[in-house]
């Protein structure tokens, strides 16, 4: 749709037909009606949820708290929590879509209840959300929360930029949610290859929704990457050498560096596609000198590092968990660090394996295939080193450890199928089939999501001051594990039976039994999600008996455990000097885990700023204006965005001071609590006795 046609319309392309609900009512086709009903139900859920939240906030007069304590906060911990909340909300939607798709699969022999177009929107939003608005915010949230604490910093290097990154991501997610209510979403999948996503084949607003939500997400992630990398390089506590950093911080560093280099290609490629669509450029058209292979190359130049952007922080979480829940120092620390860095480096050299079947020469394919298999080496090293970490330890099978052990088993299987896909000769066979779908879900769910959920369970008491319910956590974990296996092992086999991915229906009766198994697995995954919600509810209800104010419920090893739970706004009363790896464990073993500094000083921390929410609002409206070609809105919000930046440049005194007395009072209160708390043994860590003080058990036992 050319831009010039919409110049004279104040609402651009927007009219009554843009609302699927109204379009459904106007149609007498039963097929459109069923799909419209499903869509309207989802849209209604979005609208009702927003209204309920607004009503609750008003009822409990929480607007002020929300605005001043959360939305405008520059505190990395609150921003981290908001990222995770966003991730969990988006997870609910994307899982619901997944269940719907598997339900369609189960009845998809020559038909089913979903229309092609609806199914295509489902897999497109599912992929887009899971990657950009679930996994990315989840890991960004964990990194945001944990890394400054692990390196003994007061905050990230650029707290306001941090808030802006969050809000850009929120704006992108809001755009995807809006597409449920107004208009449609892309049908081109999460990677949206042209020319299918060009105006010639997809003239509607769907692809534009996809383009602008990705653009917002990619900008947010680039800024996040810069922020985290600079934080880790420049904000480490005195004495903390790079080799003293906890593994999670190392993986965060590698992820951040990859974000800095890998996000720009995505930004470029989505903007070029936008130029093709809005201004009739010929970057990716079939004819007139366009080159669709450029899109594939640049997209995967982002897309492959993205895979490791997602998995590395999960590796970091597993490293922390294997060490903590084995009561033992991490085995092969330097190997793990170098393996992480090798993976980050190699991930930029393998993008071509996403299109072995494009017709380039066999030797080029072989080189990229071998490069891809090389990644298996450092990944294998990691698996072994985690095993050796448990060796000669004392392994506790708590929820995070259940996820981690399941991860080892399932990830090895995913790694093996990955090596198969890296063999061009096999990729010629299983590319674009559901075998591939099973493979990357193998990496994305037992790899990434299990790590995120393990991290969520692990650090939740630190963030909120009380432990999550162990029983419901286990139920959820086992449902995730077996649900995943049920949902995706059949897809491996279906892929080997030639079922192309993204098929709404199929003609082979032999697919049916496996499709039904996969649907049952998907239901189990939905149950896992439900259990997660119940766990949160139960835990909040019983929060008083599960308080761990002293802050060290799991006998933690790194600095984040050396402060109260939840930590004060400034993290540490005095920034500690570090002279060891696993600094907190060393201090505890030496009996100086809870010490008082000689002096207290005033602490400067950044003031709240409305920059983030304003940026989120304007960028959302800007993108919405672009999707619907409401040009006055685009210009207005563009000017407001620039104006906000300019005004911010003129601001001074953006810090606030927390007086030394306040710090002193808070710290003494905590020290008092820590000294009076009963140190508990690991066998009691899931009981009410656990107030966050760990008894010293890391003493050698020989038999």
């Amino acid at each position, binding site marked *: 749709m050319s831009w010039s046609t919409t110049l004279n319309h104040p609402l651009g392309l927007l009219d009554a037909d843009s609302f699927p609900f109204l379009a459904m009512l106007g149609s007498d086709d039963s097929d459109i009606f069923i799909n419209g009903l499903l869509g309207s139900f989802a849209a209604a859920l979005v609208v009702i949820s927003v209204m309920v939240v607004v009503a609750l906030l008003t009822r409990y007069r929480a607007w002020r708290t929300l605005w001043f304590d959360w939305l405008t906060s520059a505190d990395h911990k609150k921003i981290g929590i908001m990222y995770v909340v966003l991730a969990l909300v988006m997870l609910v939607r994307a899982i619901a879509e997944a269940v719907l798709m598997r339900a369609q699969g189960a009845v998809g022999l020559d038909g089913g209840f979903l229309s*092609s177009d609806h199914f*295509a929107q489902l897999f497109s939003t599912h992929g887009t959300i899971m990657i950009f608005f679930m996994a990315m915010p989840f890991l960004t949230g964990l990194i945001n929360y944990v890394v400054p604490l692990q390196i003994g910093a007061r905050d990230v290097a650029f707290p306001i930029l941090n808030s802006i990154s969050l809000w850009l991501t929120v704006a992108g997610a809001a755009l995807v949610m809006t597409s449920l209510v107004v208009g449609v979403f892309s049908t081109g*999948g999460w990677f949206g*290859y042209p*020319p*299918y996503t060009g105006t010639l*084949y997809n003239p509607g607003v769907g692809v534009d929704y996809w383009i602008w939500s990705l653009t917002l997400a990619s900008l947010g992630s680039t800024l996040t990457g810069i922020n985290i990398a600079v934080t880790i390089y420049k904000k480490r506590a005195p004495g903390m050498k790079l080799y003293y950093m906890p593994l999670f911080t190392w993986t965060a560093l590698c992820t951040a560096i990859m974000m800095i280099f890998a996000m720009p290609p995505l930004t470029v490629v989505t903007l070029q596609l936008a130029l093709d669509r809005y201004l009739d450029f010929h970057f990716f058209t*079939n*004819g007139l000198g366009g080159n669709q292979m450029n899109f594939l190359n640049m997209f995967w130049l982002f897309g492959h590092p993205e895979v490791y952007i997602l998995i590395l922080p999960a590796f970091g979480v597993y490293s922390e968990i294997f060490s903590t829940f*084995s009561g*033992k*120092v*991490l*085995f*092969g*620390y330097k*190997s793990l660090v170098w393996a992480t860095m090798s993976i980050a480096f190699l991930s930029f050299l393998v993008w071509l394996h996403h299109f072995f*079947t*494009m*017709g380039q020469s*066999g030797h080029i394919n*072989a080189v990229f295939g071998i490069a891809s*298999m090389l990644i*298996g*080496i450092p*990944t*294998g*090293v990691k698996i*072994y080193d985690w095993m050796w970490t*448990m*060796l*000669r*330890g*004392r*392994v*506790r099978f708590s929820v995070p450890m259940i996820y981690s*052990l399941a991860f080892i088993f399932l990830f090895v299987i995913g790694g093996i199928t990955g*090596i*198969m896909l890296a*063999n061009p000769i096999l990729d*010629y*066979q299983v*590319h*674009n089939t559901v075998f591939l779908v099973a493979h990357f879900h193998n990496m994305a769910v037992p790899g990434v999501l299990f790590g995120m959920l393990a991290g969520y369970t692990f650090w939740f008491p630190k963030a909120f001051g009380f432990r999550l319910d162990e029983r419901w956590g286990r139920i959820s974990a086992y449902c995730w594990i077996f649900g995943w296996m049920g949902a995706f092992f059949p897809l491996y*086999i279906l892929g*080997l*039976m*030639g079922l*192309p991915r993204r*098929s*709404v*229906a*199929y003609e*082979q009766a*032999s697919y*049916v039994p*496996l499709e039904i198994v996969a649907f049952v697995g998907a239901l189990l995954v939905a149950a896992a999600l439900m259990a997660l919600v119940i766990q949160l509810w139960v835990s909040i209800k019983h929060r008083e008996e599960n308080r761990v104010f002293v802050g060290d419920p799991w006998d933690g090893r790194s600095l984040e455990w050396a402060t109260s739970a939840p930590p004060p706004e400034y993290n540490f009363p005095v920034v500690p000097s570090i002279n060891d790896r696993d600094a907190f464990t060393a201090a505890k073993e030496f009996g100086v885990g809870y010490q008082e500094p000689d002096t207290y000083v005033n602490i400067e921390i950044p003031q709240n700023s409305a920059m983030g929410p304003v940026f989120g609002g304007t960028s959302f409206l800007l993108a919405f204006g672009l999707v619907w070609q409401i040009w006055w809105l685009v210009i207005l919000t563009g000017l407001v965005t620039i104006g906000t930046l300019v005004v911010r440049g003129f601001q001074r005194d953006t810090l606030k001071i927390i007086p030394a007395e306040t710090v002193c009072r808070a710290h003494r209160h905590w020290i008092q609590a820590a000294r009076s708390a009963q140190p508990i043994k*690991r066998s009691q860590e899931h009981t009410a006795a656990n107030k966050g003080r760990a008894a010293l058990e890391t003493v050698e*036992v020989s*038999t």
Partner: protein
Amino acid sequence: MPKSIMSVSVLQMHGCGSQQAVTLSVQCVALVLLSGCNSTEHLSFLNPQGPIATAQSEHFWLVVAILFILIALPVFIGTVWIAWRYRYGATKSKYVPRWKIFKPLEYFSWGIPITIVIFLSILVWEDTERFDPYRPLTSSTPATHVQVIGYDWKWLFVYPEQGIASVGMLAFPAGQPLTMELTSATVMQSFFIPALGSQIYAMGGMVTQLNLQADRPGRFLGENTMYSGDGFHQQKFAAVAMTQADFDAWVQQVRATGIPFDATALNAIAMQGTKAQLRTVLAPAAPAFDSNIYFTGAKANFFTDLVMSVMDDKPLPSTALAPAITKGQ
């Protein structure tokens, strides 16, 4: 259907029971599932019907065997053993909380994956070159030449040497090479006959190549695997390998009953729609002998002219098609 699969799989499992290797029983279960119960069409490369698919199938089982025996099994057993032996509360095992490095174990951790990857790399380097889709298959008999054009949502097969074309059926003689050139008249697609071998993209304004062969006569599932819109899941075709005599007869039959491959026919093909929809447009009372659509008078220069017209974004020259006069006949 499910019932029959179950009973066959039990039989097969029993048959394999005497063999010791774990992979083999895995193979049996998988094979049974893969070969399915659809006797008319071969679905999977694990029940290979041609030399490429055979090589892929062998490569597949080799990689599976290596990785499962050398990587997965030891890790699975080791993890269970370690996690149990060193569980919290264990009394029979040593607890060494500061045990952080042991050089031989480190060499092992790096050495095993490096060795396996080196071995697999050699395998990949050789096999990728040998089974490159562009590489013509060696054979004493000449190759059958087919030009494949992807449309929304059907494949058009042009036989330049025979002067015929088809939608929905790719017929070719078994036991001799099949050489294909591919392009797309629309969005990017991926042409795939799993039981015979590799898939390859078909892209507008560009030409890719694919060489396959069927060992013996049979019907194989053919499809597009790259999502291309509403009718994508119906973009299937039957790849049918025949004896030379049957193939010649088929060509004669197409020549006798086909619709002229002219501008009207091409316009109908180019419209978005499935094969079934195309049939209702082009041949409502089709005299054809099956559900496919056949054309006569396909020109040898059609494919190249089409590629050029997509590349230059210009209409197809009239010389690419059969003259419109034939329409009335």
